[in-house]
């Protein structure tokens, strides 16, 4: 039996001391085997101690049962046997052997739970008690059934039943008890990390999620508020206050507040300041999570400074690891050299599980010895890491807390990076990895680093601007338009579609800011023409062959410096003449036409949403697809505008008839929930810079007449996804629905300003000004805008009367 393929029996590489390089693995293996040994010893000891009382208890229970249910005469003998005499049958002696007892199964379940279910101990204990009760009851039932078989059919039947049926019964009972234990200890679906599709369901921040705990997808789960557990109730209402507070402090210290990951940079910095005010230990797990997951240098710097300021004594390994990380960050930033404040005694809290103390001291002395050459110390670092970070974490932690030679640090970081396969079996390993990460990120930032690694998180509008946020807001507003709108303004700006609500809003905003506005529309009675102070001109419709020339003429004759288009259909003809307009000094910002088409063509839009798994109403453009679209329905033109041609219906036959009558119609499910519109501004790289969502509390003719701004990270996030999926740039508004379960669905995107723009402007986000500035200064980065949630708008009619005497 020879292998078909070559096996290189001799190592292809230089010989090495394989055993020594696996010292850490050997220690891990030994510790696990030791734990198994301890479990076995505990199991056997408990079995030996408890088996007699258990058998006595089970014997009594069986005897009690028989005396309860029948006219049997039951006698218990020797605490492990029962003599059952029944009228018409021979008396039968049943012996409860140790293997009959349920103790074996109960202990097996307990051992398994202790060995494997190491998290959420209180839940595991409760689950075990439930599973053990079931197992005990089922086993008791087996013994009663066996005894009953013996009473009624003789001892042979009892043996047969006990040995075969009872064995299967016992097996099933054990299995059921085990399943119950597993079921009760597993999290309910709303708190699980993943579902059966491997999808991430924990709703953690993107940057804080970890690979392998499910991929991130929006699910249609109902998210319930956490119910108050019995344990919490017990703690809250029965324990004395000092003890209760102590438990609460410990819980808070060990709890990661994932909400931090949803905040924007300024808010995260403020939050860190707030968390560290109570001392590092108070919210240690959350702070450590920031050190572990955060990529923004500003946030990391804030954390590092907070850690550095902290003078409270270190009481846990997490605080010690934070200090170590902070040193890595500061050394990587080239802002610190020399030893860490060893008075903090960092390594004392991280040495648990490390190797032999005396050996580690010797190794550290060698590493720390400045008389040794750097090469020799580097080689020693390699060797120690090779043998295991956990194995030598004591000396390695002491070393990284003091080393400041760049070559040695770099080599240590590389060695730790190479050992990322090594199980994080001790707190020391976790701390070493944190230190290395801190140093590496800071090092990259210090040398001008990789933007993709340390780029700031995408902005999201705040709900309650803090101090830093208010300052930023003031900064943004102050620098937005020195001397009015636009740098060096006022400007002469053309606005197309001045008859629509969006056009009117833009015209008003520009006029209010002091610009000269030329309102353009095909309708001579356009409302935008009536805004005081504007010039206006009637131009052909976008689909008229004369449109392009008319626009060029208007730009030339009025010396337009910028043109804002508020009609998505005009993008295509304007793109064709963009160069000619630019040659005449009129700047425009026109989005990608294909992206615009994705917005206009609702069927195509639905396909894009579907391909990106963004929730949107089920859509079909064909009659035969209607059966996949749950009712009630809404039928609309594939390329319609506003609410023109939109029909709602609850009648399938009617919908089918409508669809057959016009091939350019599409059908969608009509969604239930709260309707919203989000005004968004996207920079030329496709990054959403501003998102101002508002509820459409009332609409008339497709136009919002009653709105309320609100803040929602979920809506903002979905809007960012939609924008990325469509590939649109510039101004856009996104319409969607939030259902009762908080699920955000997107209905459509308009690649233009919205009709409800006044509310967005009133809430503080001057998207028109920012958009104009982006047109005039294409290379300038669009600053994120901020807004106040809770601003309400009620729209009323406004009359312009001509010709009255």
């Amino acid at each position: 039996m020879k292998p078909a393929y070559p096996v290189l029996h001799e190592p292809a590489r230089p010989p090495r001391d394989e055993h020594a390089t696996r010292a850490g693995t050997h220690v891990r293996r030994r510790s696990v085997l030791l734990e198994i040994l301890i479990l076995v010893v505990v199991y056997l000891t408990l079995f030996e101690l408890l088996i007699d009382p258990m058998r006595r208890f089970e014997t009594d229970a069986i005897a009690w049962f028989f005396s309860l249910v029948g006219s049997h005469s039951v006698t218990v003998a020797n605490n492990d046997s029962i003599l059952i005499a029944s009228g018409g049958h021979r008396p039968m002696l049943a012996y409860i052997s140790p293997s009959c007892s349920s103790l074996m199964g109960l202990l097996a379940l307990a051992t398994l739970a202790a060995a494997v279910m190491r998290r959420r101990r209180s839940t595991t204990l409760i689950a075990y008690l439930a599973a053990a009760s079931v197992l005990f009851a089922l086993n008791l039932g087996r013994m009663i059934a066996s005894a009953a078989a013996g009473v009624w059919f003789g001892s042979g039947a009892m043996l047969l039943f006990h040995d075969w049926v009872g064995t299967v019964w016992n097996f099933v009972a054990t299995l059921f008890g085990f399943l119950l234990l597993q079921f009760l200890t597993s999290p309910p679906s709303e708190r699980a990390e993943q579902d059966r599709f491997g999808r991430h369901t924990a709703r953690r921040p993107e940057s804080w999620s970890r690979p392998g705990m499910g991929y991130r997808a929006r699910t249609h789960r109902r998210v319930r508020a956490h119910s108050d557990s019995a344990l919490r109730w017990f703690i809250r209402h029965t324990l004395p206050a000092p003890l209760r507070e102590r438990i609460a402090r410990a819980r808070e210290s060990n709890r990661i507040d994932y909400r931090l990951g949803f905040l924007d940079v300024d808010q995260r910095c403020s939050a860190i300041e707030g968390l560290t005010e109570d001392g590092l230990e108070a919210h240690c797990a959350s702070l450590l999570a920031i050190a572990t997951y955060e990529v923004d240098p500003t946030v990391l710097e804030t954390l590092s400074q907070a850690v550095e300021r902290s003078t409270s004594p270190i009481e846990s390994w997490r605080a010690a690891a934070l200090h170590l990380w902070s040193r890595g960050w500061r050394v990587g930033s080239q802002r610190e050299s020399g030893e860490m404040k060893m008075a903090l005694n960092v390594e004392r809290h991280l040495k648990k599980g490390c190797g032999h103390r005396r050996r580690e001291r010797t190794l550290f002395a060698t590493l720390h010895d400045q008389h040794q050459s750097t090469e020799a110390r580097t080689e020693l670092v390699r060797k120690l890491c090779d043998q295991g970070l956990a194995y030598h974490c004591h000396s390695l932690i002491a070393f990284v807390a003091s080393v400041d030679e760049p070559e040695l640090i770099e080599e240590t970081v590389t060695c730790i990076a190479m050992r990322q396969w090594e199980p994080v079996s001790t707190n020391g390993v976790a701390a070493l990895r944190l230190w290395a990460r801190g140093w590496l990120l800071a090092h990259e930032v210090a040398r001008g680093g990789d933007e993709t690694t340390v780029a700031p998180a995408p902005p999201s509008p705040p709900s309650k601007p803090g101090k830093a946020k208010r300052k930023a807001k003031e900064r943004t507003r102050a620098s937005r338009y020195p001397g009015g709108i636009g740098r060096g303004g006022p400007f002469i700006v053309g606005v197309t579609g001045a008859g629509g609500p969006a056009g009117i809003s833009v015209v008003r905003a520009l006029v209010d800011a002091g610009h000269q506005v030329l309102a353009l529309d095909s309708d001579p009675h356009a409302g935008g023409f009536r805004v005081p102070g504007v010039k206006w001109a009637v131009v052909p419709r976008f689909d008229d062959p004369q449109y392009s020339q008319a626009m060029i003429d208007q730009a030339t004759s009025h010396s337009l410096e910028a043109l804002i288009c508020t009609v998505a259909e005009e993008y295509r003809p304007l793109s064709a003449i963009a160069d000619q307009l630019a040659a005449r000094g009129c700047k425009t910002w026109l989005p990608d036409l294909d992206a615009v088409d994705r917005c206009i063509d609702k069927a195509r839009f639905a396909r894009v949403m579907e391909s990106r798994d963004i929730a949107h109403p089920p859509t079909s453009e064909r009659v035969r697809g209607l059966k996949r679209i749950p009712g009630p329905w809404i039928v609309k033109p594939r390329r319609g505008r506003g609410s023109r041609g939109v029909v709602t219906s609850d009648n399938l036959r009617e919908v089918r008839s409508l669809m057959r009558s016009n091939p350019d119609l599409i059908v969608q499910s009509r969604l239930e929930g709260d309707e919203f519109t989000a005004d968004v501004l996207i920079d030329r790289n496709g990054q959403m810079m501003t998102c101002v969502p508002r509820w459409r509390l009332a609409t008339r003719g497709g136009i919002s007449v009653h709105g309320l701004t609100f803040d929602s990270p979920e809506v903002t996030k979905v809007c960012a996804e939609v924008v990325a999926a469509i590939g649109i740039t510039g101004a856009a508004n996104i319409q969607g629905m939030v259902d009762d379960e908080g699920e955000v669905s997107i209905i459509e995107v308009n690649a233009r300003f919205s009709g409800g723009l006044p509310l967005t402007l009133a809430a503080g986000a001057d998207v028109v000004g920012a958009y104009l500035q982006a047109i005039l200064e294409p290379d300038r980065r669009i600053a994120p805008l901020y807004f106040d949630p809770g601003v309400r708008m009620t729209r009323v009619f406004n009359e312009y009367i001509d010709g009255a005497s």
Partner: protein
Amino acid sequence: MKPTHPSKRADRPEAHYVALGVYALLLALAIYIFGINHTAAGLAWFLMVVFFFFFLRHLSFAIAAARWVHRDLYAADIELVEFTPSIAVLIACKNEELVVDKLLQALLRLEYPENLVDFFIVDDGSTDATASKLDAWAHVDPRITVIHRPLNSTGGKSGALNAALELVQADLICVFDADHEPARDVLFRLARHFLDERVDCVMGRCIIRNGGESQLAGVVFVDFLSGYLVNEYGRQALYELPAYGGANCAVRRSTLVALGGWNVETVTEDTDLTIRVILAGGRVRYDPTAIDYEEAVIVARRFWRQRYRWARGHQKCTRDYLVPTLRTKNLSMAQRGEFLMFLLVYHIPVLSGLGVVLTIARLFGVGSIPAVALLPLTLLLFLGPLAELTAGLSIGRVERRSAWHLLGFLPSFALSIVTTTWAYFDGMLGRPYSWVKTPRSEAITSNADVSIVNEPLHTRRQSDLDDQTIEGAMIASTGLVIRSRDGQRTNTVGTKSFARPRGSE
């Protein structure tokens, strides 16, 4: 690349009549000398000892995982962005029209320097639209090279991969299967371990993405959770001997070339390569954070075919490499013991079958010990794997109702007894067997797009394809396929329906 030691009878595996004869002779001799009752009792005790050691193995892996893997998953990442060896991604496709588009989308969105990664897709004699789809994709991105192998080419997946290997010049080779959708950062995560020059192979973690499609798929989902989060992890944590799994894994090209490429004589080329690398003194690493999503079989027949192939291939590896394993000096005693158990893992169900035979024989009075004394056999058989499954579910923090999928392991285990026993005798008798691809179920769930849209914006790479490009490629290859919420698929270009055309298989 040709194998350096081709089988003398490539069309038929080597039979082991002599070994079977020796086993039969030994059994007859034992019965003759000790009597059938004592022989049965002796066999039962032998089984109990074997099962006990495997129980310890499973339990130690479960404890190791329960202790550490959670911290591993959430530990700080150290990203050495400067270490970027060139990578060739190899995929063998045979009649994969249902899944190939998703695969290519996922591949082209992988985060890795564009000039350092190439894709070699082997169309292994497909008779469906796979070839045309691949050609369409090759026009989308110049990094894609499609290799067409003629129908009835030999060697199965190994042969296909070897055909691609001849064209590869990259430092590392990553292999995925056609139904896989790797996470975007998987190449970085796999490649980082090769910074250690002693590492030859790195294995990532596979997650089932259609566990809710059927009861069987749910069982496989849980099986993979424990297989990767517990068993594979435990092998690395306690012995540094994880297995290279054949997909979502990387291997150093120089090592592969030195070993003569993938073994075309086996149907489990992954196990074969693992063994050869380890016996050669190389190291295999496992990274539980290098993720890729794959499809589970959803019907019992396909499950049977897949597990039969695994059993047949693994048992052949045992026969091929048992002696070299005992002789090697590259493993410590503990590692050798673990490696032997790893080799024998597909023989254990065969022994379980023997245990069942002994139990039944006892019903008819054969055997000198009471049948109940065989009960510990059953418990040991189940307790170890159950400990692993429990640890997998707990670590993965899977939703509660998945716990009931554990019930599915009873029939699954019974099926594996039959499968492995069948495969064992087929292998020993040298019955012909060639690579059998597992048919795809066209999973309704896909993460390829989701992983992109949910990505923080600032992590976008230039390699991202825009919709237009992908739509263009998909229309060129298949017509744009829309997925609706209920998972039903409709081809919007043609009239052909893509809704489970293979459902009858």
